[in-house]
């Protein structure tokens, strides 16, 4: 069975989104895009491009929170970079949304474990990428279902916003570093969750 990997951009002060959690991110207020400039800002290096391509190779399916999907579905576009089925943690059933290039958003209403099971079936032994947001990440982490945490650490202090690591209980969770890759405007950190 594949691994479950959380993959998110985070500011040095621990935020994965600014305080204006809407689909019109406001740069002045620390909107979403400042955390993703390293990827989408038009200045991403060939190393970044290569990193991104490699990143998706072992992935067979994705999981995303409903709010994150609402924010992301626009920017991710008609031909999303995922090229795999994405399962959406949802409260309401709705028809799947199919995009070009192999990405389809499936809505699952039966909680994190059932969603993971569906993703695993679709992934066929490959890894599963948890795309966020914070709430989904926290739920999987707390349930002990995460195998790896891949963070793209952006050198900025947002001061406020949506924190990644909150509401994860008070049990110490030990991690092990797998790799650290430094690039202009971002440091990629990979950790294994010790279970």
């Amino acid at each position, binding site marked *: 069975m594949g691994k479950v990997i959380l993959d998110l951009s985070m500011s*040095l*002060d*621990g935020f994965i989104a600014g*305080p204006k959690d809407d689909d019109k991110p406001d740069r*002045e*207020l*620390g909107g979403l895009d400042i955390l993703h400039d390293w990827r989408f800002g038009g200045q991403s290096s060939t190393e970044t491009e290569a990193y991104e391509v490699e990143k998706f190779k072992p992935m067979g399916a994705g999981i995303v929170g409903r709010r994150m999907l609402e924010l992301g579905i626009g920017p991710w576009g008609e031909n999303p970079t995922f090229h795999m089925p994405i399962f959406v943690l949802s409260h309401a059933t709705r028809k799947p949304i199919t995009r070009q290039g192999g990405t389809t958003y499936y809505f699952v209403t039966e909680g994190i474990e059932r969603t993971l099971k569906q993703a695993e079936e679709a992934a066929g032994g490959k890894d599963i990428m948890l795309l966020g947001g914070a709430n989904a990440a926290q739920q999987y*982490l707390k349930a002990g279902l995460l195998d790896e*945490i891949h*963070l793209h*650490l952006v*050198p*900025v*202090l*947002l*001061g*406020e916003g949506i*924190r*990644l*690591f909150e509401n*994860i*209980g*008070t*049990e*110490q*969770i*030990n*991690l*092990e*570093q797998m790799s*650290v890759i*430094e690039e202009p*405007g971002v*440091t990629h*950190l990979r*950790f294994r969750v010790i279970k």
Partner: protein
Amino acid sequence: MGKVIYDISMSLDGFITAANVRPEAGLGDGGERLHEWAFNSADPRNRELLAKGASLGAIISGRHNYDLAVPYWEADGPTGDARVPTIVVSHSVPQDIPNGGVYRFADSIEAALEKAQKAAGDKDVAIMGGANIAAQFLKLGLVDEISIHLVPVLFGSGIRLFEHLDSAHVQLETTEVIETKEAIHLRFRLLK
């Protein structure tokens, strides 16, 4: 004049102590994990970083941090034999300062920085704890660099480093990344 560097060990989830900080456990329950890179690592890169502390001109500490640490620091302060002058931000001067101690006391952030820079001359000044002091220095725009020793652990609770910044939006530049098993040492320059 040297640089002002905020220097601290932090868990991946942003805590500079674990839960239940008290005199017997200054870093909280299990919080000593944060300092393993400094005290319990054979990695030469960690030793080298620690040794750099000796070349500092002065250190600034909060009072709470001082109270918790002084039993271990004793008269020589946080850098041991190097005896780097240590300025404590405090509204009062404690009664039982160790004899021959490296400590001086200042009743405001600005006064502490002035004393520290005077003592440091051309050398750098490091701010070492706690979160409150860090936030005040950052808000006043007095920090030149941030040095984070990022420890691969999630505490889930404790004292958060970045909590009182309001909506200050500070752009940084990563200047150094050193990977060791016990901690990832990250250094940032504040872009002003």
